[in-house]
């Protein structure tokens, strides 16, 4: 659409606006961040200096016209409301604010975790929990990550200082929720589907996108015929459920020693009319459970197969609420908390 047409269309449609709500919709459509006009301004940077100046002036003129249209219409509508209230003969001043109610707020990570857990429960996954202080065995060795394996570098670990010098098994702060895969399978026979939400830790210097502690949801589904295609189907459904269908999902190869093959899941937000944001964000590491794990917990050979995954909760919360700094989650600030 060219600018003249845009102006014409905006004028026509504002004439039809009847109330404040309608006007706000009009504002978002014609003057909002994602409006055709804004996108036009954004595209100016690609033009030559001279062309930019010419087109910029033109667009600025239109913006001024549209802004005036908006202000006039708004004043008009507000006046209408005011007049209609003033005319009422009741002693009740309905414009006085209601009594202030002081309900608290749940933390965004609680809200997101509930969303995710609810989606998985609908699919029949049960919630299991595990310890934050783990043994080296469950966190690493049982997951095919022995001490001299280069893959250990993928998990920077905070170790617990041993109580005695000769302590046999070293303790650590779990670096992922995956230890629960083996812990759970040791005590339960398939078929099953579980999720394990919980706090994890990494040896990491904190900045806007890294934290020393974070939340993960582990998933594990094992049966006689649970296959890679099933994994894709379930995860796609759940991600669409969590994000209300406003995301695309992609699956690509990856590597974790306790699955084969390994898969990484990325998502991308779909924003209408906005092509600029085409960044894929990693939210999940996954794969088909490595048969070594089944062997380790004493399952019958070649009978079971299934998938496992680990979903990063902060990542999902940051995408959903457009939070740009992960540190906000763990440094309580009333101005942040009250927003949820």
């Amino acid at each position, binding site marked *: 659409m060219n600018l003249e047409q845009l102006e014409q269309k905006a004028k026509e449609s504002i004439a039809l606006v009847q109330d404040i709500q309608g006007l706000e919709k009009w504002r978002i459509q014609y003057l909002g961040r994602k409006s055709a006009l804004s996108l036009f301004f954004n595209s100016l940077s690609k033009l030559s200096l001279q062309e930019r100046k010419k087109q910029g002036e033109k667009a600025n003129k239109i913006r001024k016209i549209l802004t005036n249209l908006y202000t006039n219409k708004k004043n008009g509508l507000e006046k209408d409301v005011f007049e209609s209230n003033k005319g009422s003969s009741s002693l009740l001043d309905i414009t006085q604010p209601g009594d202030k109610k002081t309900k608290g707020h749940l933390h965004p990570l609680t809200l997101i975790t509930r969303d995710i857990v609810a989606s998985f429960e609908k699919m029949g996954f049960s919630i299991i929990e595990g310890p934050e202080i783990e043994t080296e065995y469950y966190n690493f060795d049982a997951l095919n990550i022995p001490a001299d394996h280069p893959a250990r570098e993928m998990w920077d670990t*905070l170790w617990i200082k041993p109580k005695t010098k000769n302590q046999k098994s070293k303790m650590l702060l779990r670096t992922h929720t995956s230890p629960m895969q083996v812990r759970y399978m040791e005590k339960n026979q398939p078929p099953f589907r579980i999720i394990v939400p919980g706090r994890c830790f990494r040896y990491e210097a904190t900045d806007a996108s890294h934290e*020393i502690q974070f939340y993960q949801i582990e998933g594990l*589904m094992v049966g006689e015929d649970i296959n890679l295609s099933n994994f894709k189907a379930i995860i796609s459904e759940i991600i669409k459920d969590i994000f209300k269908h406003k995301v695309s999902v992609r699956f690509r190869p990856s590597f974790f020693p306790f699955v084969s*093959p390994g898969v990484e899941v990325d998502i991308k937000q779909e924003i209408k009319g906005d092509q600029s944001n085409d960044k894929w964000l990693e939210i999940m590491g996954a794969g088909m459970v490595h048969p070594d794990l089944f062997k380790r917990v004493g399952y019958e050979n070649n009978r079971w197969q299934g998938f496992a995954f680990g979903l990063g909760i902060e990542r999902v919360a940051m995408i959903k609420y457009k939070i740009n700094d992960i540190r906000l989650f*763990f440094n309580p600030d*009333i101005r942040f*908390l009250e927003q949820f």
Partner: protein
Amino acid sequence: MKVSYNWLKNLLKFNTTPKKLADILTMNFAETIVKSTGKRPILDVELGSNQVAWASGHLSLAREIGACLGKKFDFPQPIIKETKALTKNLLSLDIQTSNCRYYSARILQGIKIKESPQWLKERLIDCGIRPINNLVDAANYVMLETGQPLHVFDFDKINSEQKTIIVRQAKEKEKINALDGQDYILNKEMMVIADKKQPIALAGIKGGQGTAVNKQTKNIILESANFAGNNIRLTSKKLGLTTDASWRFEHNIPFELTAYALDRLAELIQKIAGGDILKGKLEKIKDVSGWKEEKVEIPIKWENWEKFLGWPIKKKQIIKNLSLLGFSFKERKEYLLVTPPKFRNDLKIKEDVMGEVARLEGIDEIVSFLPKEQLKLPVKNEFWIFREKIKDWLQGYGLEEIYNYSFLSEKDKEFLPAQWQEKMIEIENPTSALTKYLRPTFLVNFLKNVNYNFRFTDEIRFFEIGKIYSLKEESFVFGGVLAQKAQSSNQLFFQAKGIIEDLFHSFGIDRHDYIFKSLDKTRYSDLLKQGAAIYKGKDLIGVLGQPQDSFKKHYDCEGEIIYWEIELSPLFNLVNEEREFQPLPKYPAVIRDISLIIPQNILIDEVLRVFQKASPSFLEEVDLFDVYVGKNLPQGNKSLSFHLVFRSSDHTLENKEVDKEIEKIYKALKSIKAKIR
């Protein structure tokens, strides 16, 4: 890993644009981004730790890209012209450690050291390596090409007449001056390349200054070896020295590369630095077991493919993908016998092989089907639900939910009383002094929260559900903090107590399930100035009260603060939500008010007990509606006012009957020195 797009294109001859190539690699091989565009585009390939060994060179990457594009790629064979002089007459090998699995060397004589040609320098720069001179550059170049790290020694700087290259473990406290100019002190676990006198290189990690090539260099020794990954990793970690070479060796590179890269390096050096290649290469194989002589054959039943991957895949398609990836195989009626390519040390089981085929097909491309599983309700996790309900209730009471760090700092620990310090868990390798301990209580974090948030508000109402940690265990607690800048007379304490009581009540936890007792003799008496301990039977399960002034001062918090923390699992065991309906009363109640003055040291609990005891059958409810201390009262006394509710279950109470009950109560009250007003 930075790779040159032009280099790859030159090897494989494709028409794919850098962006498209990055997409293909991401979806079929490893996550890749276009690092820079222009005349010399650079890609950044993030190899999985299983891929480094066999895909960290441009040749091997070209082979993998070929597989993705459906093109077969063969490594070019180096062509070497040797002189008549024999290598072995000038040099011998002595491999003394099994951490060196394979060692090979060649000698070149009469080379000319100078700057590298432009094309070579550009490729190094594109891949993030600084050009130095044609010899060093050639070694780096062939490493980038093949994935095999290489080294060049100055032949004439090797000590002694009869020159020998020794590969051995270092002696304790042995020293080497490495190419980076640093002195490294070694131990027995580390492996060195040495001459008869001293170490000349840190095996697989960095060369030594003593045998480095320079402008005077005429004759050189080329080294191509295979070292045990775990030993290189250990040394590199201990010395804090990671190099392009150590990174590759750590991942156990394939044996096949060693001899190939040696010849390739000789060929390249001759091309850009001249000189003669002596006849024959020296080589020693130490660890024969590492050679995969025996053929790995993995049988995969035809029906397995669909069962595991989940979509029908044709035999033809399987075989095509496997050949592209360099597998060899034998087709049988029931199954396929698969042998992974020799360079792949990461493929051991049938799932690995099927995964490789899925990767090439594109996991994103394949059809997805929901599983055909039994409809089964998930098992309810009652403890989880319990905690989520608490959150909802506390939100309803107007509290904000917070998440704090699990950590306390060194300073925090030092400020805690000794009996708390003793039980704290210490982190062996904290990221800083701030994360050295795990929290044994919520109090410290809460005080920090109050201090910080008083900047924005005069009133704080926070709660948190999370874990506290002690040497014995980690346990879920629910804690809260109420704070206000203005002082009040214990208002916050009763607010908090009310919240806790009502919360307990809503879970069916009744007054006879728990009691509030004095803090004395609990570990909390060190933290709190005054408050109450909550007991379930003999077990202390929580606490509620005002922090000690010293804590408030230390964490710089003014005003009135009440905090609580209660362990959740003992509480959870009390939960009784099975409620039974109580029939509505048939007969009306009679309500009488009563006010009394009693000495302040008599607890309200005691008064309530007196009421119950005096009128066991008709007194239904006692409701304290006013407590007063101050003017018009004798010193040391308080005034209490109650609504008393009387009711009988089988008749309408008459006034006379109620009067009689009141009489009994008055009498009983006198025994605890109460005066009726």
